[in-house]
């Protein structure tokens, strides 16, 4: 990677972090409605994965989707405007936090029914396989999704049809407030892929470069016909499941321990230690990122509400 790429990945992670911190404040002040699921702590996962994909590779994720949105190149302005439900949002204010997508960037959403997007991912990959296009579909989901039927139907179908999908479980140890041990028959999630004869491995999700490196290799294999593969990426969300989470299910000490492994901090140290960037340069990146986020809030707040007629558009392509 060139130095600019290293710095860009740092920039992306800081934008996601700061954008979500701002979003949390805007939620508290009532400017963002509905549900807000923050990605804080998990930034290295989507940043590393997306850094490893090619433009023709598709990505689809669950409702904790702000990180992917930024990583694929949706502007902070469009993300923030969507959170505020404005006409300038990436989904025109009709989707909200859980439903962001940009199909021109091969990002297929943002899906809010747990596990339901996994069969869709198989279909996206089928689209490429059908046309003999060498592309990978990256499907991200939480550990909680591995207990629902959709997961098993989709993994099975992908293997039966040898589809170019990379199934990525972001294991943050909790499905809402329920630990893996209390919800899943096997605690090592990747073993579920064994049941479908699928190659799988575990990756440290707090280490951006480890995620990127593994993803590069796996995407390459899948792109070249290995069939579907499974990645379990170990991570942790520093905030609650959503903004309305009292977090009675975990100890503050556990949260603190993980926070010491902040993915942004780890990457920061790596860049310094390997002499890729100086403290001053990284401070500048942080400043730039903060400016981007600040501008996005101003943009979103000053953006217009959707026009009333928007209520009735986009129901059908052909009325």
């Amino acid at each position: 990677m060139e130095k600019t790429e290293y710095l860009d990945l740092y920039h992306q992670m800081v934008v996601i972090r700061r954008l979500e911190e701002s979003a949390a404040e805007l939620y508290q002040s009532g400017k963002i409605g509905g549900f807000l699921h923050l990605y804080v702590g998990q930034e290295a996962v989507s940043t590393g994965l997306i850094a490893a994909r090619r433009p023709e590779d598709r990505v689809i994720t669950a409702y904790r989707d702000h990180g992917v949105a930024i990583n694929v190149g949706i502007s902070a302005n469009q993300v923030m405007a969507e959170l505020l439900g404005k006409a300038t949002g990436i989904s025109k204010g009709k989707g909200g936090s859980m439903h962001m997508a940009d199909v021109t960037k091969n990002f297929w959403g943002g899906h809010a029914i747990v596990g339901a997007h996994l069969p869709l991912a198989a279909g996206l990959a089928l689209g490429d396989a059908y046309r003999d296009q060498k592309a990978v579909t990256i499907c991200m989901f939480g550990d909680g999704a591995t207990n629902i039927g959709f997961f098993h139907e989709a993994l099975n179908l992908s293997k039966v049809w040898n589809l170019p999908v990379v199934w990525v479980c972001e294991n943050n140890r909790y499905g809402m407030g329920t630990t893996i041990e209390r919800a899943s028959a096997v605690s090592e999630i990747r073993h579920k892929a064994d049941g479908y004869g699928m190659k799988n491995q575990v990756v440290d999700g707090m280490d951006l470069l480890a995620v990127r490196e593994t993803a590069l290799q796996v995407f390459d294999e899948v792109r070249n016909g290995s069939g579907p593969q499974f990645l379990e990426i170990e991570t942790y969300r520093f905030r609650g499941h959503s903004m309305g989470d009292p977090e009675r299910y975990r100890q503050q000490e556990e949260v603190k321990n993980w926070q010491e492994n902040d993915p942004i901090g780890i990457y920061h140290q790596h860049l310094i230690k390997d002499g890729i960037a100086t403290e001053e340069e990284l401070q500048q990146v942080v400043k730039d990122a903060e400016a981007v986020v600040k501008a996005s809030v101003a943009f979103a707040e000053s953006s217009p509400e959707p026009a009333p007629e928007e209520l009735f558009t986009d129901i059908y392509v052909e009325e």
Partner: protein
Amino acid sequence: MARITMREAISQAVWEEMERDPDVFIMGQEVGVWGGTYAVTKGFYDHFGPRRVRDTPIAESAIVGAAIGSALTGLRPVAELMTINFAFVAMDHIVNEAAKLHYMFGGQMVLPLVIRTVGGGGRQLGATHSQTPDAIFAHFPGLKVVSPGTPADAKGLLKAAIRSQDPVMFIEHATLYQMRGEVPEGDYVVPIGKSVVQRPGRDVTIVTYSKMLEVSLKAADKLSQEGIEAEIVDLRTLRPLDMEPVIESFKKTNRAVVVEEGWPSYGVGAEISSRIYEQAFDYVDAPVKRVAQMEVPLPYNRTLEQMAIPNADDIIAAVKEVL
């Protein structure tokens, strides 16, 4: 024009569309090697090959979900659910994904998807395999729901569905596959969302669709012998619903009977009669009458099952009530 069965008409529509457009493909349980559980796709596998004729596991969420995903990439899947009763297993993908994606992402996602499925009772298949839950699917904005009652409409509407940019539920009827009728050869397309008068009359309007069109036509013939001329409007599409021919007919007859095979509560008859009252109240000479299935899970026993499903005599009795 050739006189062919509903099965042949449906098969012809899919075949011709697959010949016309390489992006059209079929997927579902037993659509390939078996040739379709209702033999609609017999011969397809040998002709079009395994890439375009895809047998799936018995996993309805995977079938509909993967069909949606492939449609998002620009393919035109015709996904078959063996019966509409199994659509409940895929309900999340039909309702929360197919019906919503275009709207929810601000118009970015387009899914030219057809879900072909089969409904209806009368074959002693028991309560779980005999339902007519069409109204449920017609409840959701974002879906189009089509259910033909003649071979010609089956061909023309299915072609329109395959060419549509929107997700379409195409509901066939298990006891209509052998029905014969004149079907135009070649590129015959019937637009989605157009109701049509299938039999002209002056005394009463019968509004119906699918299998109940056949039953209503029988009832109308008998009524005709008594000098009562029923006009029959075939909805053909449940969503978007075209009320124009219904209202036009009602303004002439001032009396209506709505006939559906499904249960009456919250059903097609409830919707149609409510709209008649809303749109033509000044023309009402008698309360609109609903003929529908008895409010029971369908039993296996033939006599009991037939008691529960509307027949021509039920329609005749209803017509006489409104006259």
